[in-house]
């Protein structure tokens, strides 16, 4: 297993995956800085709730696009170079699938961790009134990692399926729009439940009240829906098993 893991990283040389993540992180930082530049003193008092709430929406838009590019960077080299017929005489197909999934997952977790770090730095720089809560960190990880892993699996399968990577990338952009739209629907709406990109909004953990007269938003904690989390976990397990099975069964 270690050999296969090592070769995955050898293959990623010059793929500039780190640069891709940094570009998205930089864009996220600029977006957050722009939001914070408009913040009033009251909003900064409850800064973490405010920024977590905004970052959830930013991630809903950016992560599907990032994940499609990430999956494409990791998987299309096997298709473009016809390497499966060589690699699969030395490595089990299922193992190759696992390695691609693990590598992508590691990049994703690092990206989400970097975002949390970014929030912490913002908190310090803008002087948020309350400290960052562990509960928020945990919910943020659950919301972004689980849903993103399901999307990454889907993107991996598309990248392995199509030689032309425009199709998986288009699927990523489609996901971004669906995800964004899902925030405009109530939790009970089917739209949020049937599309996996809408599950970011289902697992949100900060609510807000908008007071029209004072034009002030107040934020409060919301328990993420357990049913939604269960659905995402079922999709993740099922998606992994189905994706792996299809990949192994596919003849080269």
């Amino acid at each position, binding site marked *: 297993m270690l050999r296969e893991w090592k070769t995955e990283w050898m293959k990623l040389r010059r793929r500039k995956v780190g640069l891709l993540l940094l570009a998205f992180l930089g864009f996220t930082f600029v977006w957050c800085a722009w939001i914070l530049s408009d913040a009033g003193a009251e909003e900064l008092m409850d800064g973490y709730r405010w920024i977590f709430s905004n970052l959830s929406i930013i991630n809903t838009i950016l992560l599907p696009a990032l994940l499609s590019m990430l999956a494409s960077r990791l998987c299309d080299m096997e298709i473009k*170079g016809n390497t499966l017929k060589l690699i699969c005489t030395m490595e089990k197909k299922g193992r190759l699938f696992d390695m691609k999934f693990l590598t992508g997952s590691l990049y994703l977790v690092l990206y989400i961790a970097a975002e949390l770090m970014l929030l912490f730095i913002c908190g310090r720089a803008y002087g948020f009134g309350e400290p960052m809560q562990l509960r928020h960190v945990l919910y943020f990880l659950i919301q972004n990692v689980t849903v993103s892993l399901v999307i990454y699996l889907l993107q991996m399968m598309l990248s392995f399926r199509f030689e032309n990577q425009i199709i998986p990338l288009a699927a990523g952009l489609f996901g971004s729009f669906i995800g964004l739209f899902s925030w405009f629907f109530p939790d009970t709406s089917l739209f949020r439940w049937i599309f996996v990109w809408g599950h970011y909004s289902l697992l949100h953990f900060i609510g807000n009240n908008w007071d029209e007269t004072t034009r002030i938003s107040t934020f409060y904690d919301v328990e993420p829906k357990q049913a939604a989390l269960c659905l995402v976990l079922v999709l993740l397990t099922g998606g992994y098993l189905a994706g792996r099975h299809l990949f192994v069964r596919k003849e080269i």
Partner: protein
Amino acid sequence: MEYIVETKGLTKSYGGKQVVKNVDLKVPKECVYGFMGPNGAGKSTTLKMLLGLIRCTDGQAWIDGKEMNQKNRLEILRETGSLIESPSYYGHLTGRENLEIVRTLKKAPEKEVDQVLELVRMERQQDKKAREYSLGMKQRLGLAAALIGRPRLLILDEPTNGLDPAGIQEIRELICELPKRMGITVLVSSHLLSEMDQMADYVGIINHGQLIFQDKLEALHEHSKSKLLLRVMNRTAALKILEGRQIEGRVTEEGILIPGLSDDRAADLVSALAAGGAGLYRIEERQKSLEDIFLSLTGRRESL
């Protein structure tokens, strides 16, 4: 005789249509085995089944005496190198980096990368990105990758496809060297008969998914019975004389083609033709080319 590859009833069907039918391959050790057949005959499918890249619908395959199955496939293939259809490479990596990946997966010693680079004469281009290689270089890189791990069996599917004459010659020489120099058995497929004629010790011919011939190359050549071409001034008289001697003659553009005769009978016929006023001015012996033999075996002309 010991065989490094043996198959029994190897069959592959797609949607009820058999593309490989009951193939019984027998590849002797340390030789070059040419696997021939027209395009679409089932060569690549058979080789892919041997490598476990596609599942066989029926039949068994033994490599080096071990029956292949999904469990022991990788263990058996550790001593096998392959190059199937177009070369496989990571374009963003250098030639050397590509080989390092194969070396790591095959658990081969580090020095082997240098050895195979030298063998395929790629030392100078090893640090160039694979996508910048010419097709010939990519093919050589594929061959180098196949040679890592000191395989006992090399499976090459049309390795000279798309190469220029110099590249073809180079690959051909390399393939011929391998059994003698490194004790490697080479199972190589091609639809080019001239290529096989220069490389193979044994040949197998597949057509419409069926193995129609398998033996030494010499045995294939034995199928070529010589013919005699008679060039005469008067064809009618010549045909009459042939008919009188019960020799079947076929009129062609060049002359009259008759089956090969013993020296006595040939001398007798020449005298008769001269005496009978046929105006015999030339007699030539015609040997059937390997291509003719192949065509008579496969019975198709369209793809050669």
